[in-house]
């Protein structure tokens, strides 16, 4: 199998790269949709780690967790899209920096 031939460090680097891309998106973007996508990237970076280590150690637990994360991500997107719709309705925009009225 290809997986066996590729050293685990490579997967780590890939996961770190995806995570950094996601983090960059979260830190710099103002568009809520892009925000959601960046969060997906963050979650999937974690998923890669879980799957790789599960395979590496011959343990199924990590894969199960990856499934959980996917389910949670789906739920999160559902809620996130809902919030974005409300943002659009109230502010006429999906800019996350506009919605600051509930802070204090």
């Amino acid at each position, binding site marked *: 199998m290809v997986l066996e031939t590729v050293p685990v460090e490579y997967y780590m680097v890939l996961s770190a790269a995806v995570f950094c891309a996601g983090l960059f998106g979260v*830190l710099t973007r*103002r568009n809520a949709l892009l925000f959601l996508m960046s969060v997906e990237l963050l979650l999937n970076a974690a998923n890669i780690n879980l799957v790789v280590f599960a395979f590496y150690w011959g343990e199924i637990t990590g894969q199960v967790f990856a499934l959980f994360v996917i389910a949670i991500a789906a739920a999160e997107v559902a809620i996130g899209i809902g919030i974005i719709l409300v943002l659009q309705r109230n502010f006429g925009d999906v800019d*996350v920096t506009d919605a*600051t*009225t509930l*802070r204090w």
Partner: protein
Amino acid sequence: MSVIYELTPAIVLLPLASFALALFFGAWLPRRGAVVGSLATAGTLGLSLATLAWLLLTGEPHNQTWYTLVDADATFDLTFGILIDQLSAAMLVIVSLIAFLVHVFSLGYMNDEGEPGLPRYYAGLGLFTASMLAFVIADNLLMAFIFFELVGLCSYLLIGHWFTEDAPPSAAKKAFLVTRFGDYFFLVGVVGVLVTFGTAGFAGSEGFPVLAEEAIAAGETFFGFGAETWFSVLGLLVLGGALGKSAQFPFHTWLPDAMEGPTPVSALIHAATMVAAGVYLVARMYGFYALLPTVLAIIAFVGGFTALFAATMAVVKDEIKQVLAYSTISQYGYMMLALGAGSYVAAFFHLTTHAVFKALLFLGAGSVIIAMHHDEDMWKMGGLKDEMPVTYVTFLFGSLALAGIFPFSGFWSKDEVLFETLIHALGGSPLLFGAYAMALAAVFLTGFYTIRMVLLTFHGEPRSDTAEDPHGVRWNVKFPLSVLGVLAVIAGGINLVPVEKLSGGSLHVAFLEGYLERDVGLLTHGEHYSELLHDHAGYTSAYVGSEVTTLLLGAGLSLGLALLGAGSAYGLYRGAVPTRHTEKLGGLRTLLMHNYYQDEYQVWLAEGFTVRLSSAADTFDQGVIDGAVNATSSVSLSAGSRLRRIQTGIVTNYAALILLSLLALLVVFAILGGWL
């Protein structure tokens, strides 16, 4: 348990029921609650007499807990219970008799005069009687305290009965506050007794007086004090309540003002309830006081001093009820003196005869006040003896009893108080001579002011139009007066100790002494107290010559002084138009009319000292205590309002913060873990 003790709670519940009925349905009751009240107190009187008779016949006392307020495993139970021994059984009869007669008299004084607020008045009388009776049968100090307070509350309500006028509410507040000041010490004393002994029961070998006796014998220490010192502190604290209620110096100031209340209420307060409660409390826990020579000496001195002090003020008063008020203070001084001088029997004897003749005098004064259309100034009376013979004769009997003239009841009891004080003073307690001298001087003054009062009220020419044509009184006034008038003459017969001693012991006529000394197994009998007094306080009897010589000397001295006082009053005030002799006293009269400026100094104490102290405390509270609290909260507030700025509401900032924090955490772990 015999049937009669099953019925004991009814003694208290009957007047309580009359209270409830008069309070809620008074307007629809016959005579606005007077009938119900009279019937209830008559029932109480019957039950009390039955209880007394039962105790006399069988010698079986009653001491039982009826209700547990707080059931505590670790500390002590707080309970209500009933204690019927010789003292409480006799006191029940006194209280219910006076209460019954006062109810009947009130028909004449309140109903016939068309006074307002009658249901409220009879409700007050009912509650007053009920709480005093409950206080009398209390088997422990806590219950006694609760009903002691209730007695104080009722006197407040009744003194302030005519609350629409200016003076009565003020007098009521004063009575309440002054006695409350004493009760404050009492409350601390109750807590102290409970903490020290784990029980507040009065009687039996489990009662706190017996425990105190054992603790002193075992030489125990409490909180670093010797047993006797600590018990003296407790005794003095409880005594504070007794002095307040019994109007002893310096707490006597409330009592003359309390004359603002209706006269039957004054009779009840002075003869049987409020004021008697203080003396009764000391007698109730006499097994405790008998262990404490210091406290006994204080009681004796306060009593002797009060007897003289109040008698001097009574000499110059112009209003009939004022004279009686000061005489009450003075007579309770005698009772306190008797208790302090170690004669429990004499104190209770004087309490009994005083209850009879003082109730009689107040009701007589009430009758005079009805006749005079509520004018109390004796200088406007005069010549009433021909107009109201029943009142005159009974009032005269009461006065002679008060003055201590042979053979009226007051002579026997006052003489026994003085005699016991004298023999204990001779027997190695020379300090008692001081108290004895003051009490003797008071005998002279008592004779003087009593006869002055009688002469000014009933003799001579009428000095006003109302005195010439007084308002008549009906049976409901004459009946209580007649009952009490007869009793005032013969009540001394219950304890003719001098006669027994003169007969060499062959005539057994000291009934009360035999009754109170009898051992019924509760350790509250007089003989036990005498042993305690002898062992702990060192009271022994000694005589000038023989016992009979001392007896005759003492009795002759007090009777001589009383007659001298009475005779000088007669000489000064007997004419058809008596002169105002007291005005010749000049500055002394001013001093006496102002009651030695006691009110002024107490007001000064309240305004100059207490108010200032409390305003200083207020400043401290507002400035330092509240200041510290406010400073803490304002620091938190301002810190919070600055810190909340980091909550921008922009999600990117939060993400950045989380990231930076995570990195910082990693760096910290790296440094601590030694990776770097």
